[in-house]
């Protein structure tokens, strides 16, 4: 099972960290492709194929940037396959464009662009998958070099023409796989060390005391002081009797209210949860909602008083909808990214939008099939 785990799934914030590298790597790959394409123009016999190659590498890069967005579900095997196939198509068309006129193997931009893109995958896919994919693409690229051996100028054994373009791809694949494996192992170690590390991130943040049940507040502030006085004096007046009856009635009422009130209603005033789904949530989901509520309260971008949570059970699963007004002239998108990324790792469906200055986040629990049915 751990073979399928990715660093992004285990640490969504790490996925956001790595995305900057994705954007930079794609930019480098595209510049590399365009510049080298112009520099080696004298070796290109079929410009149409070169144009297709450039389009394919651009599509691969754009798709990679899009699929690794924190606002999207975790980067999947399917996305990995699409990125690799488009980049490999670019390599093939780049070779086809130079068919019969490719005199120097090392200035082909296709393998270099593919290697640059492969380098970024360590945070998003498991080691075995990256290694398999890069081995296969390196083999294809090596084979392309081999079949063009006759046209290259250098006087070296033919196999060298397979090795030289394949090495960068295989090297970046191995590096990305080692990166992925090391990160996943560290993250699993951390998870298995249970709560020992949980406090490590808290040192710079003030801890708040969970809100006490209202009947216990009433007990501490009203009932117990009253009974202490009665026990101390040993005298009961008519007023004391009436006061005792009022206190007993209030205490019973508050106990009843506290029994009915969920943990969510203790932290948010406006909660609609007719089916009491909050009480059935898991530890991680509860923690996530607490984090969202805390963020809305601390952020200067939202009107925290307008936060409203709605929990509903459908035939297809459960949904949690959070709505809050954004303050005028603010854009919470950047602040929101880490929360959406973490939500993707906890819930089967995550949807969000900002419309009419209101941020709406919909979190769905259930299988992906169920989620599609909800949407």
């Amino acid at each position, binding site marked *: 099972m751990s073979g399928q785990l990715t660093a992004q799934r285990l640490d969504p914030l790490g996925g956001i*960290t790595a995305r900057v590298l994705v954007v*930079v790597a794609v930019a480098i790959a595209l510049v590399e492709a365009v510049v080298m394409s112009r520099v080696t123009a004298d070796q290109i016999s079929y410009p149409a194929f070169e144009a297709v190659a450039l389009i394919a590498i651009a599509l691969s890069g754009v798709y990679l940037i899009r699929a690794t967005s924190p606002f999207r579900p975790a980067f999947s095997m399917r996305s990995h396959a699409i990125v690799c196939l488009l980049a490999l198509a670019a390599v093939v068309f780049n070779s086809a464009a130079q068919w019969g006129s490719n005199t120097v193997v090392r200035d082909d931009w296709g393998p270099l662009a593919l290697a640059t893109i492969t380098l970024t995958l360590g945070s998003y896919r498991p080691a075995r998958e990256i290694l398999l994919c890069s081995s296969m693409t390196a083999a294809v690229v090596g084979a392309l070099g081999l079949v063009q051996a006759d046209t290259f100028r250098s006087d070296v054994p033919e196999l060298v023409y397979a*090795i030289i373009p394949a090495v960068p791809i295989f090297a970046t694949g*191995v590096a990305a796989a080692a990166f992925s494996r090391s990160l996943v192992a560290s993250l699993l170690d951390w998870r298995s060390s249970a709560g020992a590390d949980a406090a490590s*991130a808290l040192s710079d943040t003030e801890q708040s005391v969970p809100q006490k049940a209202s009947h216990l507040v009433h007990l501490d502030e009203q009932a117990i002081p009253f*009974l202490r006085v009665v026990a101390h004096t040993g005298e009961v007046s008519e007023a004391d009797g009436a006061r005792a009856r009022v*206190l007993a009635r209030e205490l019973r009422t508050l106990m009843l209210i506290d029994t009915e009130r969920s943990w969510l209603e203790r932290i948010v005033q406006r909660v609609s949860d007719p089916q009491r789904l909050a009480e059935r949530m898991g530890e991680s989901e509860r923690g996530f909602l607490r984090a969202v509520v805390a*963020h809305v309260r601390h952020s200067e971008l939202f009107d925290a008083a307008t936060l409203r949570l709605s929990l509903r059970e459908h035939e297809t699963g459960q949904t949690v909808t959070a709505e809050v007004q954004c303050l005028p002239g603010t854009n919470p998108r950047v602040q929101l990214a880490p929360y959406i990324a973490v939500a993707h790792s906890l819930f089967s469906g995550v949807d969000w939008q900002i419309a009419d200055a209101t941020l709406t986040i919909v979190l769905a629990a259930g299988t992906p099939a169920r989620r599609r049915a909800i949407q």
Partner: protein
Amino acid sequence: MSLVFPNSLAAATASLALSRGAYLFGVVFAAGAFVTLLLVQLDRGTLVAWPALAAIAAIVAAGTALARPSGDRPAVIAVSAVVALAGSAVFASALIPRLADSSASDGILLSMVKIAIVAFGAVVGRRHSGVLGVLAAAVIAEVPVLLVSLREGHAVSLDVPAGAIAVSFLAVLSLFSVSRRRSRASGPLMSLAGEEDRRAVELARAEHSSSAMVHDTILNELAVVGMVAPGTLSPAARAQISRSVDRVTLVGADAAAAVASDPFAGEVASAVEWARTQGLEVTVDGDTAAVAGLPAETATALGRAVLQCLTNVIAHAGVASAELTVISTDREVCIMVIDSGAGFTESETGADRLGLKHSVRGRITDLGGTVQVWSAPGAGTAVSMLVPR
């Protein structure tokens, strides 16, 4: 369990992963150069490439030494740099004179070996500055090739692939650091939320038992006071009310304490926390609650001794992790700080290494405790500190 990976560990784990990736990246490039050269050597019997092949093997050995746990030690880094420099010089001297006169200093074989050396330079980023490692490696890779090329009258060209790889490593190392600060800004708040949830669950559990107690005691007493005729209460009734109030107050206090108290707190926990902020992964296990029960003076001294031990691990052990184990009996508490790092011979430590002598041994013996150190070069270190309760 926290919702997100703690920020204090993120940098260390990413550096370790980058270091492992860089090492294998270098190995593949070196292997590519080795196989290519071997094929050429086999194809042309007249070419004498064996010294160049040996040089590649030496460069990989230097990289492998850096990638091993002991590779963080300055001596290993220095020796690896010298070996890589010698390897680079031998490789250039063996290969360049045999290349065609038109070949420049950026020939593909030369580039592949330079890339391998640059990648090995990034490996030191696991513990030290990766940027410095890459820059130093780039110099080690490029200078011998330039000098030999000039000597042999070959053209000197900017090696675009090797330069691009060096710049890429520098960009990755720098971007990761900058991007991490931005993307993980929300980490502490999310971790706090997870912790709050744990405390809220404990509070709810405590409230549940407290509510049952309220129902059985306080509501009964209020009903009695509400129904009795005005006047003086019997001594038995007064005693009953006092007992009920005391019971509920006690249960409430215990519940609050259970929720608020952290069994592993104080100076020892602070020492662990500090070490984690320095990038050391500290695993804590055993009877940590026993530390909280120690007298304040003992806990403070023990905390400072633990801090010194963890400082030693960070400064000298050359590893990214350590273990702290607490064992307690009715009369004593023992804390062990264990690492699998470089180790040392205590009798041979320099006069400047006063930490173990004064900050650990002195403090603990002043409390009537004992300190034992098990260590040997290359075999890690375990420091046991035993104090009376």
